[in-house]
């Protein structure tokens, strides 16, 4: 795992931390999702108004994103996660390699979070689906974390999810 302070520019956002890991290593243990999200959340939250609660909330969201890349990612290349901040919002830029056939699925899942019926879909999914689908994970972020989700189409096989989390305002 590498941690560095430099990262691609993201207008108006201040970079807080960047983390990269071989996808193969990442995929070797499910607990990496929990460990990374806990660790990153703590680092990012230390100077928020309520660091402990911000970290708990942030970890919850980041873990879902990492789990998503764990379940949908493929083992070649690196997973990269950069966290930025602007005011009360943290931005997570998560890039990971995934099989070509999955790209369309992510496009749709992201666009569902923007639709007016996102909330109804979310409720519908928790009341009827047997297991959480990948799109409900993004809907959960939109509904429960007030997240704005976007997809950056990198060169295949990489896919980048950009998720803005305005948690400072919710926590404090």
């Amino acid at each position: 795992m590498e941690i560095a302070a430099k990262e691609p520019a993201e207008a108006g956002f201040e970079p807080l931390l960047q983390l990269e890991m071989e996808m193969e290593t990442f995929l070797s243990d499910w607990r990496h999702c929990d460990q990374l999200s806990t660790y990153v959340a703590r680092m990012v939250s230390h100077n928020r108004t309520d660091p402990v609660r911000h970290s708990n909330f942030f970890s919850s969201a980041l873990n879902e994103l990492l789990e998503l890349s764990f379940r949908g990612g493929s083992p070649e290349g690196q997973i990269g996660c950069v966290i930025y901040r602007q005011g009360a919002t943290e931005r997570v830029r998560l890039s990971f390699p995934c099989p070509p056939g999955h790209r369309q699925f992510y496009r749709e899942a992201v666009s569902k979070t923007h639709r007016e019926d996102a909330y109804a879909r979310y409720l519908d999914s928790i009341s009827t689906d047997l297991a959480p689908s990948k799109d409900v994970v993004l809907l959960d972020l939109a509904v429960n974390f007030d997240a704005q989700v976007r997809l950056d189409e990198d060169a295949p096989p990489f896919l980048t999810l950009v998720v803005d989390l305005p948690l400072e305002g919710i926590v404090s």
Partner: protein
Amino acid sequence: MSSTGLSIPFKAEFDANSQEFSLSGVVRPRSIDEIAASISILKEAIGEVRGVLYINVRRLVQMNNTAFHVFVRVVIDACRARPDLRFVIVTSSVVGWTTRMFARLNEIEPQITVEVYDSKFYPGQSFVENTSFIPILRTQTKMTWRHERSILPRHGLRPGIVMADICCGIGDFAVLVQKEFQPARIVALDHSKASLAYARDVAAGFGITGIEYTYGDASEMLLEDNQFDFVSCRHSLQIFNQPNALLAELYRICRPGGRVYVTNEKNSHCLGEPRSQSIQWTYNEVAKLFSHFEMDVELGPKSRRYLADAGFDDIVVESFMVTNLDGDPRDFADVIAAWEDVYAGEMAVKRGDSPEFIQRFRQGFQDHIFAALHPKGYAGWPIWVASGRKPL
């Protein structure tokens, strides 16, 4: 049922007597098979209860969507199969995401309601949490610090350590410790949003950064196990109706070999000359008043026993007396005036005391102030300091 290997172990339990199913810790399974045993406990609970099943998620620190979905599915299916049953999900105001995620369920099934657990569940909470306590705390810490700054090193406080001040009030103790002892990290936790806001303002005003003020419930904190070298909890065991539960949490977050430091009073031992009898009477009444609200302000000398029962070793106990001779006697008088204000004001009124009682009650405080300011007077407020080591 519990699983290991996670930072905070996950537990699912059912208590048939209280019809309460509770989930706690961190649960982030890859597949639902990993939590099959917990799901069975929930299903059995549903099969057993009548009327209402309480689902307590106050101590649920993390739960991923995979786990959330299965638990919720079981409950939603049960709503459909058992229209006679209601579900009350109890979340904590401290854990933001649980409150938000579980609150949605009521929109799916009206049989499910969500209650947010907070201060109304503690008998005396409203007094100690509201802003009228702020002047009391401020003057108190000013007086006690003169003594504690030299006492603290004997109980393990030293530069560079990682510490937590639990029930930090307006945070002035954390600020003083930060300045005097330069710990590597201080987390300061309280359940009063007003006090925390005040604390953050004060820190910002003095340009102090690095104190992590956090809103939380001391009897079930989000803080992880075995983290802190030094955990202080001042004047607060005595205001909990279950001091043991609070101590268990302090013990949990302290690292093995670290120390938990508590200070408490024995109010009936406040004293003054002249007018000692009136003073004595009033402080005996203070102890009774607090016990009416299930708080034990006589706890000081019992702290050795509490620490021993909680599993600490190398217990050190000492006491000191804050007096009118410590510095400006006005400071002492200010503390007493602040007590009179809340104890004989809000609290006595809430208990339903008669005006005659309140008048006599007030007189003792005023006599204490008289003793403090009298050129030949002496007035004292004794405090018990105790600390114990969490065994290695």
